């Protein structure tokens, strides 16, 4: 479908990792229904955020990952309790896939005291450390060193914990990408670098910000195995992530999984998006991870529209509840502005 240098045109799954015999149970219908619900949750959550921002009801600005849902959900299939995730500026999906509470997240986005960060963080600074979610992050490329450190902690504890760093194609150009791959490789850190290559570094297309098509090629230069997967296919992402995490759990070191994906919205909510055509966005919508999984479930697994409709209705109610909770929450006490500055 998409060929040449202007799009991914890649559905190739190349695995040069050790231990790729590990198969995800990602073809089981229960697993797929779980994936579907998680992806719908992210989609509905972010659509609600977009609506609230455009209506002027939610402060600040944020970056939506609508279209990319298969990546965090697929990766979450590889995670166990105790694992760590370091996220980036486009991180609502990562947080939700890690099990962060949509109500607390929404409250944070509304700047409420009941928010995940007590109203001090907002979209790009929300964490739930109790779930191993080390935070969304407003600094491009910051997730890699943090995940390396989390992985170092796991290594020094001799645990089987794994750390995930989510990053975009843009972040693969920043210094921490090279430094972190080198460090992780050198120390055999149990970390998986998950590149969400959505073809745009903010408003600059991949061909205008780097010479390679597959960012995964860069991993070899640091001695890391890598995989390139179709990031619009949640099962493909899950399979690759499980292999990668499994490798780390066996103390075989880090790896990189590049997920070819796409975001339907602009870099931030309300962005003019002059750098791409509506036709291009429509092309990728044909590959929509939710719709394609839906078709698979119906055609391949005999799941009814009704079952999927119930899932959607449940999630809709959950997100509506989260929006109501967040919108109605109390703002933080201005008298507590200095709280949490120093331990």
């Amino acid at each position: 479908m998409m060929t040449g240098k202007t799009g991914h045109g890649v559905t190739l799954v190349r695995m040069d990792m050790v231990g790729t015999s590990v198969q995800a149970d990602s073809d089981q219908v229960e697993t797929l229904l779980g994936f579907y619900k998680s992806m719908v949750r992210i989609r509905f959550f972010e659509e609600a955020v977009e609506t609230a921002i455009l209506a002027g009801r939610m402060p600040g600005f944020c970056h939506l990952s609508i279209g990319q849902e298969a990546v965090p959900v697929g990766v979450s299939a590889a995670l166990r309790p105790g694992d760590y995730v370091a996220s980036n500026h486009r991180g609502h999906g990562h947080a939700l896939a890690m099990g962060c509470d949509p109500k607390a997240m929404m409250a944070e986005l509304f700047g409420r005291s009941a928010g995940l960060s007590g109203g001090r963080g907002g979209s790009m600074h929300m964490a739930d450390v109790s779930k191993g979610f080390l935070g969304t992050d407003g600094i491009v490329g910051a997730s890699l060193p943090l995940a390396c450190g989390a992985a170092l902690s796991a290594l020094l504890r001799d645990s089987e914990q794994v750390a995930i760093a989510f990053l975009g194609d843009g972040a693969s150009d920043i210094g921490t990408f090279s430094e972190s791959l080198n460090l992780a490789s050198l120390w055999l850190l149990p970390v998986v670098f998950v590149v969400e290559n959505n073809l745009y570094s903010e408003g600059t297309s991949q061909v205008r910000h780097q010479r390679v098509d597959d960012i995964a090629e860069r991993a070899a230069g640091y001695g890391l195995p890598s995989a390139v997967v179709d990031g619009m296919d949640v099962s493909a992402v899950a399979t690759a992530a499980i292999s990668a995490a499994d490798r780390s759990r066996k103390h075989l070191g880090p790896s990189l999984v590049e997920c070819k994906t796409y975001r339907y919205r602009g870099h931030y909510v309300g962005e003019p998006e002059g750098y791409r055509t509506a036709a291009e966005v429509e092309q990728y919508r044909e590959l929509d991870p939710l719709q394609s999984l839906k078709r698979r479930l119906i055609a391949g697994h005999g799941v009814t529209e009704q079952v999927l409709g119930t899932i959607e209705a449940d999630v809709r109610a959950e997100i509506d509840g989260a929006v109501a909770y967040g919108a109605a929450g109390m703002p933080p006490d201005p008298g507590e502005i200095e709280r949490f500055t120093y331990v």
Partner: protein
Amino acid sequence: METDDRVIVLGEDVGPYGGVFGATRGLHERFGERRVLDTPISETTFVGAAVGAAMCGFRPVVELMFADFVGFGFNPLVNQAAKAHYMFGGQVTVPLVVRTAIGAGLRAGPQHSQMMYSLFAHVPGLKTVAPATPYEAKGLIMSAIEDGGPVVFCEHKALYADRGDVPEPPYKIQIGSANVVREGTDVTVVAACQMLKRALTAAEALEASGISLEIINPRTIFPLDTSLILESVAKTRHLVVVDEDNAFCGFGSEVVSTVTREAFGALAAGPVLVTPPHTPVPFSPVLEDTYLPGSDAIAQAARHVLESA
């Protein structure tokens, strides 16, 4: 490291090499490969990884070889370490120590000589300490490691060769506590690190002229022990601040500003600030010696503040 397994050391050449200034000598041999980690030259990543490890239960002590290199390590320090506790609503702490070599006088040139501590102290969420003696170095590093948040530990290069009594048993000096190094009656002089020695030399020189300096060593740049300084100024009514960092938006200016705001009425004369010129640190010995405030300049400042009263 003996009493807390969570304490790990990482940085460039901190392992068998023992650190370029010898500060980690013997640690690798004693605590092993897993607790004393040589890193590639990649400050952004190893400071960032230390932040990550700190968030996940460890107490990393990072060596940032020269404070001048902090450009590379500044992002994880400013945007992660300093802010994580706050921006995540108190969920997580970052018990991290970044040790770094500061200061001029070793003919190390513009990129290996800057003080930088004012820059660290400016960032909410970071504590910045700067010992002046071997005794303080031990007491403050113990406190820094046990502190729950990120601490930048500034070690002046010109003081590495100093010798002094250091008790063998563990002890701590509280972060945020200054001390009176020399009691006096006429002028309060605040001076840190290398400048403390020069202020003491100035005090000895002035003694013959009947001028008595009270010398305060801040030991911690932030949080600053303002009450001790204000107490002293209330007694002497004169203030000279000596700072090896640049004056503009600097630590010395902050001390002058604080005293002026908090104790204007106690001052018999305008405070005097002694600093290097607003330039990079020059290499040539003649220029570097001109750059650094000497004891003569400090003595002259003390005389000036008394005469202008």
